C-alpha cells in the first residue's frame, strides 16, 4: 500500500480514487479472512484480529468517502510549496498508510512508532494551506502531540519493563498476544503497571484529545482542509483510541480493570463537560465540530471505562457512528467555507435558502451528533447509558444526560443562526459537485441504516471485536 501511495502521488484524482477502492478491497479482504479464520498473523510484527478488522473497516469506509469528497474539494486550492493536489494525495496516502499500519501492528513498540508517524504524516496536511493559522495550528499540533507521544513511549517502556520483570522473554515482551497471555504475570509489579498506564493514557490521550491534553485539537481541525479535518476527527482519533484500548485490555488483565477504568472515566467525564461548555461559546464552525469530537471521544471513554459487554460494545459502535457523522459534518463545513469564504458562524446566514443540500447534510449530521433517532449515535449512546445504569454509575449517567442537553442547546443555537436569516456575506452559489453529493449522501444513508437496522455481519464483527478486548 505504501507503493500505491507513492505512485498515486504523481497521479491525478482518478488514480487516488482507484487506489482508495483497491485499499478498501484489501481491507475487506483482511476483514473477511479475520471473520472466517480468526486472527491473522504475518511475520512477527503484523497481526490482524477482529478488533483490527473492525477499525480497518471504519478507516476504509471513511477514507474512501473522504477521497471522493476531496476530488470535488480540491478543485480550487491556493498553489504553494507542498500544497498542490499531488502533494495532497501523496501525504494523504502516507497518512492513511501510517494509520492502517497502526491497526496492523502486533507489537506495542510498532504501535507507538506508527502512531508517532501519523502525527508526522498529518502535520504537513494540517499546515496545508500555509496561512498564518495553518502554520500555527500545524506547529502546535506537531509539538503538543510529539510531547504527548513521547510520554506514551515512556509508558510503553515501563510496561515492557514490567513484562520483563514478570519473566516474559525480552524479545517478545512487547507483542500484544504475548502480553495478553502473560498479563497475570505483570501483576507482580503493580506500581509499575499503573505508572505505565498513566503515561500511556496521558500520551495517547493527548492524541485522542482528552481534556486537558486536547489543546491542539480545535486548532488543527479548524485550520486543516476539510477532508483532512474529517480524517483527523473520524479516523486519527480512533487510531489513538485503539492504542489505549489495547493497553487498557492488558492492564485490566494484569491488575484488574479498576484502575485503568477509573482513569478513563475521569478523563471521559472531564472531556465531555469541558467540551460541552466550550461548544456553547464557539464562533468558528469547524472549531465547534472539533470540540464535539472531544466530547464524543469522552463519551467513548466513558463507555469503555464503565466496561461491561454493553458498554464496550456501545463504545466501539459509537466510534464508528461518530466518525461517519463527523465526516458528514466536516464535508458540510467544507462546502460552507467554499461558498461563504468564511467559517465564522456570525457571518453565515440564510443557508437554508442559498445551499439547501448542504443544509440538509448539516441537519442530518447535527441531529445524529446530538444523539437523536433515527440515527446511529442514538443507538450507541442508548447502549452506553444503559450500561451506566446497569452498572449503577449514576453520577456518570446524570453527567452524561446533562452534558447532552447542553451540547444540544449549543448545536441548535449555532445551526439555527446559520440556516435562517439573510446572509450579509453573499454566498458564491457554487454548484455542488456530484462527488461531494455522493460522499455526503453515503454518510447520511449509513447513519440512518445504523440507526434503524444494523446489518448482521457488522454486529458479528463488533461482537468479535469486543471479545478480543476481554
Amino acid at each position, binding site marked *: 500500500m505504501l507503493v500505491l501511495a507513492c505512485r498515486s502521488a504523481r497521479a491525478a484524482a482518478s488514480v487516488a480514487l482507484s487506489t482508495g477502492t483497491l485499499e478498501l478491497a484489501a481491507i475487506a479482504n483482511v476483514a473477511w479472512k479475520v471473520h472466517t479464520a480468526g486472527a491473522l498473523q504475518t511475520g512477527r*510484527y503484523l497481526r490482524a484480529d477482529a478488533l483490527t478488522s473492525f477499525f480497518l473497516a471504519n478507516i476504509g469506509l471513511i477514507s474512501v468517502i473522504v477521497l471522493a469528497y476531496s476530488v470535488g474539494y480540491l478543485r480550487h486550492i491556493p498553489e504553494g510549496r507542498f500544497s498542490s493536489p499531488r502533494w495532497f494525495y501523496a501525504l494523504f496516502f502516507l497518512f492513511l498508510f501510517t494509520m492502517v499500519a497502526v491497526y496492523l501492528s502486533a*507489537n506495542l*513498540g*510498532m504501535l*507507538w*512508532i506508527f502512531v*508517532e*508517524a501519523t502525527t*508526522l504524516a498529518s*502535520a*504537513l496536511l494540517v*499546515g496545508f494551506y*500555509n*496561512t*498564518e*493559522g495553518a*502554520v*500555527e*495550528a*500545524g*506547529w*502546535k499540533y*506537531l*509539538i503538543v502531540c*510529539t*510531547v504527548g507521544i*513521547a510520554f506514551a*513511549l*515512556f509508558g510503553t*517502556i515501563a510496561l*515492557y*519493563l514490567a513484562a*520483563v*520483570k514478570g519473566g516474559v522473554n*525480552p*524479545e517478545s515482551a*512487547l507483542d500484544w498476544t504475548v502480553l495478553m497471555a502473560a498479563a497475570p504475570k505483570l501483576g507482580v*509489579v503493580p*506500581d*509499575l503497571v499503573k*505508572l505505565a498506564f498513566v503515561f500511556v493514557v496521558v500520551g495517547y490521550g493527548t492524541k485522542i484529545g482528552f481534556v486537558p491534553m486536547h489543546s491542539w485539537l*480545535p*486548532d488543527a481541525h*479548524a*485550520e486543516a482542509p476539510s477532508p483532512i479535518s474529517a480524517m483527523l476527527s473520524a479516523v486519527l482519533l480512533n487510531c489513538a483510541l485503539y492504542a489505549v484500548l489495547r493497553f487498557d485490555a492488558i492492564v485490566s488483565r494484569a491488575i484488574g480493570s479498576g484502575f485503568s477504568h477509573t482513569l478513563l472515566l475521569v478523563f471521559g467525564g472531564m472531556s465531555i463537560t469541558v467540551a460541552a461548555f*466550550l461548544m456553547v*461559546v*464557539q*464562533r468558528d464552525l469547524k*472549531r465547534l465540530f472539533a470540540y464535539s469530537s472531544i466530547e464524543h471521544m469522552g463519551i467513548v471513554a466513558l463507555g469503555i471505562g464503565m466496561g461491561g459487554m454493553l458498554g464496550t460494545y456501545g463504545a466501539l459502535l459509537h466510534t464508528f457512528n461518530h466518525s461517519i457523522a463527523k465526516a458528514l459534518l466536516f464535508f458540510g463545513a467544507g462546502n460552507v467555507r467554499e461558498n461563504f469564504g468564511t467559517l465564522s458562524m456570525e457571518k453565515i446566514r440564510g443557508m437554508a435558502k442559498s445551499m439547501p443540500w448542504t443544509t440538509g447534510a448539516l441537519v442530518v449530521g447535527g441531529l445524529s451528533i446530538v444523539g437523536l433517532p433515527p440515527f446511529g449515535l442514538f443507538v450507541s449512546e442508548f447502549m452506553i447509558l444503559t450500561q451506566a445504569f446497569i452498572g449503577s454509575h449514576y453520577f456518570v449517567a446524570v453527567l452524561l444526560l446533562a452534558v447532552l442537553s447542553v451540547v444540544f442547546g449549543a448545536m441548535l443555537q449555532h445551526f439555527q443562526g446559520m440556516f435562517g436569516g439573510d446572509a450579509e456575506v453573499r454566498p458564491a452559489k457554487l454548484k455542488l459537485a456530484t462527488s461531494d453529493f455522493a460522499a455526503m449522501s453515503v454518510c447520511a444513508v449509513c447513519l440512518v441504516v445504523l440507526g434503524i437496522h444494523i446489518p448482521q455481519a457488522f454486529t458479528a464483527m463488533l461482537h468479535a471485536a469486543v471479545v478480543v478486548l476481554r
Partner: protein
Amino acid sequence: MGLMELAATKALASAAVLLFITVLMMASAKRISTCIVLFGAQSAVLTSQILALAFVHKSAEMYIVAAMVFVIKVLAIPLALFRIVERLNAPREVASSTTSSQSVFTAAGLILLSFYAVRPYVQTLGVEEDMLAAAVALILTGAFLMVSRKKALMQVIGLLVLENGIFLAALTTTFGMPLVIEIGIFFDLLMGVFLMGLFVFRIRDTFDHLDVSKLRKLRG
C-alpha cells in the same frame, strides 16, 4: 582489558554527573547554539553510556544502537540544527521567559525532585539510582525548557532533551528495547526533527519571527 573495564565503570559512574551538568548549563545558556552544543554533548555522554553497557553486557545489538545514537544525535541533528540557525539568520538568543538564574535554580530543583521521585522504584527495579534520576531529570528539564523558552527552535531542543531522558530511562531499566523498535524510534525522531525544521522555516516566512509565545491567533 582492565583498562576498558575501568573506562566502562568510570563511564557508568560519571555519566549521571555529566548529564546533570549539561542540564544545568542548558538551563543557564543564553544562545541557541550553546544549547545545541550542549545537546550534542549530552548525546555523546549517552553514547559512552551505551558503549559501556554494551561492553559490560557483551551484547552486539547495543553497539549498533550506540553507533546510531552517535550518528544521529551527536552528529546529524546538531549539525542540522546549526544549519537551520545559519539559514534563519534570525536573532539567536533563547528568549527565555525566566531569568537564567531562575532557570538554573529550577533545573536544580527538578534534579532533586527526580531523585525523590525515583526513590521508591529503585528497589523494585534494582537499577542505579542516579542513572534513573538522571533520566527523569532530563525529562523534566526538557519539559521545563519547552514551557519556558519562547523560541521555536528551543522547543525542538527541549523535546530532544526530553526524548533523551526517555531513551536513557529505557536504557538503564531495560538495557534497551528490541532493535527493530529502536530503529523505528530513531527514524521517527529524525523525521520529527526534519519536519519541525520545516515548520520553523514556515513560521519564519509567515510571521517574520520565531517567538512561539506570539502564535496566539487561534484561541477559545
